[in-house]
């Protein structure tokens, strides 16, 4: 039934897909970029802000004269957090809309599902999903804007090692993000002098992890590492509190959402997670270029949408501007191959997730120094000690 539902939503999504007619002269015809975003399904909470950012920034770019005089148009398709739908949306954007580049998808699974069509068309794709697999299963056309687990996991373990923790318990969802995180964690634990004393999983739609947390409590770890991004994170924290588990819990960059703090309430106090500096732009130092970019983004977004942007909104910003900046450097009659090469040459691009440096071997472009460890204190994010 869920499938039927998604299909229907998908069809609705298709019909909504932008069919705007432009009566501009050929030279002013917009440059079309496609975006595959999860506006429905489990990742809707991530995809919503991503769409907001694209809408906001495209309007701004066009108001400022577009790209070398040409406006841009970003056609957003909803993938319903479904891989088949993501693939169908990609095919549509490429074949029907003739987009020059793709932003997307929101999720790792959906991003991977786009690859076949992207390879066939030979156009660049910039993903907003954090799965390691996206840039590790290397494709010269595919780039990524979030911190991948291969950057975040070593950063987190180094932090925990500094705290003197040795025995860790792992808990993760069995979806793409959690599984990927667990794999990278297990591959790196020994390097930082740690061992896993428990490993538990849950389904993204599960509503109670008491049994898993009871087992973790029994294993007596020094620290619990939780790798998940959805609403379940709050449930894990609450279950831990109810079971009176007095062991520190450290999450992933997928937990950088105020919904978690609100949802878990008092149970979130003391919870730590790594993420980029965007949550507290002051970390950059108020006179830096990074601070200016982050601050104006946060202010504009908050003014327009009435709430501060999530980190996911930042990933969309980075994906859009990496493509736009590359387009600005190209002649009017550019080819997709030239666009791809230009994206790969992205150097010192100050985005929201950090400072990007792509290279022929690195399509993630971020470093551990783009991350900070946060702690929840008094219902707010502060820098963890």
């Amino acid at each position, binding site marked *: 039934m869920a499938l039927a*539902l998604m299909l229907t939503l998908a069809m609705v999504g298709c019909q909504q897909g932008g069919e705007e007619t432009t009566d501009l002269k050929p030279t002013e015809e917009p440059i079309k970029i496609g975006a595959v975003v999860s506006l429905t399904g489990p990742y809707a909470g991530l995809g*919503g802000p991503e769409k907001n950012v694209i809408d906001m920034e495209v309007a701004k770019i066009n108001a400022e004269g577009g790209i070398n005089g040409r406006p841009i148009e970003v056609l957003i398709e909803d993938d319903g957090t479904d891989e088949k739908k993501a693939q169908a949306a990609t095919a549509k954007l490429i074949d029907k809309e003739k987009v020059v580049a793709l932003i997307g998808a929101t999720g790792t699974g959906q991003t991977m599902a786009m690859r076949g069509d992207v390879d066939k068309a030979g156009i660049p794709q910039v993903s907003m999903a954090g799965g390691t697999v996206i840039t590790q299963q290397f494709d010269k056309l595919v780039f990524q804007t979030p911190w991948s687990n291969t950057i975040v996991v070593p950063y987190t373990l180094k932090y925990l090692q500094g705290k003197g923790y040795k025995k860790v318990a792992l808990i993760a969802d069995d979806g793409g993000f959690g599984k990927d995180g667990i794999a990278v964690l297990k591959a790196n634990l020994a390097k930082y002098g740690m061992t896993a004393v428990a490993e*538990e999983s849950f389904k993204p739609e599960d509503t109670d992890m*008491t049994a898993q947390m009871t087992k973790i409590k029994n294993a007596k770890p020094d620290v619990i590492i939780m790798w998940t991004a959805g609403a379940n994170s709050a449930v894990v924290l609450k279950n831990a509190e109810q079971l009176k588990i007095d062991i520190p819990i450290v999450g992933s960059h997928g937990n950088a959402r105020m919904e978690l703090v609100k949802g878990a309430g008092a149970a979130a106090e003391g919870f730590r997670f790594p993420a980029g500096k965007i949550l507290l732009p002051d970390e950059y130092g108020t006179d830096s270029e990074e601070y200016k970019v982050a601050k104006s983004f946060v202010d504009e977004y908050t003014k327009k949408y009435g709430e501060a942007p999530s980190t996911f909104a930042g990933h969309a910003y980075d994906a859009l501007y990496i493509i736009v900046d590359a387009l600005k450097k190209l002649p009017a009659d550019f080819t997709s191959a030239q666009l791809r090469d230009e994206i790969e040459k992205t150097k010192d691009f100050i985005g929201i997730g950090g400072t990007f440096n792509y290279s022929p071997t690195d399509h993630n472009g971020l470093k551990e120094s783009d991350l900070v460890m946060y702690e929840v204190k008094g219902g707010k994010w502060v820098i963890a000690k």
Partner: protein
Amino acid sequence: MGVDAEVTGSELLQFIIAGLKNGSIYALVALGFTIVYASTKAINFAQGEFYMFGGMFAVFFLSGLGMPLALAALVSVITVTAVGLGFDRVAIRPRRDAGPLTLIIITIGGSMVFQSFARHAFGPDERPLPVFTAGPSIDFFGAAIERQTLWIWALTAVAVVALTILYTRTKLGRAMRACMENREAARLMGIDTNRVVTISFGLAAGLGALGGLVVTPLTQTAFNVGPSMGVKGFAAAILGGLGNPLAAVAGGITLGLLESLSIGFLSSTYKDVIALAVLLAVLVLRPEGLFSRASREKM
């Protein structure tokens, strides 16, 4: 991991408490399936959405309209019951005699409409609800019971008792049971079967809402939580035996216990596999359900 860890008595108790907690929620959703099935012989796939609405409307009445929690909870159950009644009047009644398959498809459509409505009205993010009684969990022989779990059990018990009284002591309940046995005969005996079906949908919606409402303080709610809970409730109803309310409750609790004991003694990875395997085994060996006497007599 799993088998290597020794399971102590208090841990076993903790697994059982978790199982009973989740099982009670499954039971409330399963009851909704069973009640609608009894009067229409159709599976109401919108049942999970009633569960979602229960939490969502409570959040809306509480944070959106500033009602006190108890009132928000009550108004939410009443609103969702009204949605159930309205759903029957608008979508089910006009096609009531078209057979179960048509009705099932209508309920799938209803589920999509309800979910899209929630997505647009309440947004895509998860929404929290405060616990009914604040305070640390209660120590019970070394195991912890959250206060909200006591609410879950209490409200499930009240719902089951009220339903039992309705079925055994009231004229309406007897009419509903008559419809369950044979709708045509019931109609010939002068029972207003249309009214019975409408009331079934209202009851199913109210029970689903109650489930969603009481669990939201623990889990938060979102527009898309309905289908997966619908699947659990449906599995619970099948496991216990469709068409028998007490069997549905037993089915829900069995499913909850199966899941949490699988995590406790085997591995969290296999939790759903085990629950599904048991469900399949039941369907093959006892298609009428584990606890359903009424339908066995019929077969």
